[in-house]
């Protein structure tokens, strides 16, 4: 056991590192998105600021800070100010429970590669994401504008609906691993099966492939991304719930959206794709770094997929979106829970 002082110091260091890394990742996701979407649309994307436009996120940040911070009249101020803060805080909090690698020993301190290892980590992450709907809902309501209100009503209905499919699609994995602890779930996926297929949850039974795609779809809807970005459909709602926001307050919503993308990508990696498991070889320092590298690589693939789909697919109509969530995804998720429980019960 660590002494309380060491514990506090180590935790503070980990929080600072996690925040810096996450915010950098958020900034460069926006760069990646602009670049990839640009190439998909036969454009260059950002390329003037720095080599390959790599300094563009910094320029964007500076621009956001120096933009005029408007607060429209007739908004309900306390909630209008609280909504973006709430969004960002919840988005950043959930990452603290995501383990990105094994235990490491640095300078005699043995510590897990995450801010805190909670027994019911997955449930707490789901709890935090279930709260994030308030940021969107309150932003739209307090803005006192019809576009914002419509956007936030759509967003709340959409997020509440798809949350069920999202949660149910994870139940199969939980039944298989018998734990809510993210670390234990990942540990159960080490090694490989026949033909060198890794023992990741997605490959273990065909039902889990279905569950994975249900999760993927629901996760797109939860984070309000194309093709489910109805809450901010610019053709009809200007910009949806953040129409009345400007400067850093808008940037907070923006950062929250990308941080949420990274969180759902991390959960998918941990639950379906074996977390940090991957080929580990070479000298000691390489062996220490490789698991983290595999984890980051898998998350990166998800972010790339997000952007790819954004550059490819059109937007759903609102009634299609609701119908799809309730009449297609939800039954599939329930069927997956039943099938997986049956398999587990028969195997025992």
């Amino acid at each position, binding site marked *: 056991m660590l002494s309380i002082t060491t514990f506090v110091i180590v935790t503070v260091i980990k929080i600072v590192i996690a925040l810096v890394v996450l915010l950098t990742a958020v900034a460069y996701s926006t760069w990646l998105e602009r670049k990839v979407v640009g190439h998909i649309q036969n454009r260059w994307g950002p390329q003037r600021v720095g080599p390959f436009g790599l300094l563009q996120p910094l320029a964007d940040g500076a621009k956001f800070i120096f933009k005029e911070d408007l607060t429209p009249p007739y908004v309900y101020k306390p909630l209008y100010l609280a909504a973006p803060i709430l969004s960002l805080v919840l988005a950043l909090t959930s990452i603290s429970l995501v383990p990105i690698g094994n235990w490491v020993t640095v300078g005699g301190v043995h510590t897990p590669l995450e801010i805190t290892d909670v027994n019911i980590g997955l*449930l707490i992450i789901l709890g935090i994401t279930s709260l994030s709907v308030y940021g969107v809902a309150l932003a739209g309501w307090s803005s006192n504008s019809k576009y914002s209100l419509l956007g936030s009503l759509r967003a709340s209905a959409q997020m509440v609906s798809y949350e069920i499919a999202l949660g149910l699609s994870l139940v199969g994995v939980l039944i298989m691993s018998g734990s809510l602890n993210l670390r234990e779930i990942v540990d159960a996926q080490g090694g490989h099966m026949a033909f060198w297929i890794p023992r990741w949850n997605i490959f273990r039974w065909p039902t889990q492939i279905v569950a994975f795609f249900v999760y993927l779809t629901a996760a797109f809807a939860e984070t309000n991304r194309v093709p489910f970005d109805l809450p901010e459909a610019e053709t009809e709602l200007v910009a949806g719930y953040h129409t009345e926001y400007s400067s850093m307050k808008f940037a907070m919503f923006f950062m929250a959206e990308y941080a949420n993308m990274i969180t759902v990508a991390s959960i998918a990696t941990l639950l379906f794709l074996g977390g940090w498991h991957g080929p580990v070889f070479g000298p000691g320092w390489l062996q220490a770094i490789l698991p983290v590298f595999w984890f980051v690589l898998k998350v990166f693939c998800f972010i790339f997929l997000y952007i790819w789909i954004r550059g490819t697919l059109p937007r759903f109509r609102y009634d299609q979106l609701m119908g799809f969530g309730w009449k297609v995804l939800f039954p599939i998720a329930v069927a997956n829970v039943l099938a997986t429980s049956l398999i587990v019960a028969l195997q025992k």
Partner: protein
Amino acid sequence: MLELVLFFVFGTIAVGAAINLLAQRHPINSALSLIVVMASLAALFLLMGAEFLAAIQVIVYAGAIMVLFVFVIMLLNAGEEERTPGSRVAMLLGFPAVVLLAGLVAWTLFARNPHPVPVDLAGRFLGSPAAIAQLLFRDFLLPFEITSILILIAIMGAVVLASPVGTTTGSGSPEQAPARREE
């Protein structure tokens, strides 16, 4: 020691938010205060070691039921409530009644049990998901299943009440979907 400090912090927040819930005139402020109450209750559960209960408290109450409350308030665009003469009567009678009731409960508890066992704040409570699952799905399986049937009946009743007159099945517009689920 730390547990005690945290207990008082979250206890104070819970009570303060509950009072704020009553004092606020705008329904959305009241609803948000209720969310704060739920969240601090979850923190108190966590302090007692009931981690599963704490997570469920947040997911179900704060994340699902209260979203519906806020959603409906936003949808109906409810205005500020007015103070009527009736509310003054309620205040005059209500506060003494609350004090009386709380005193009665406390007196009964202490009279029946003069040497109360202190609550173990550091958490040796049987609150892991596995322990709760054992209780729900083995020891109390029948009451649990009966409750779920009760809830099913309530959902069906809500659907019947909500569907327009003359239609029993009601294909339902997509906007009704989230409301239906929350029952």
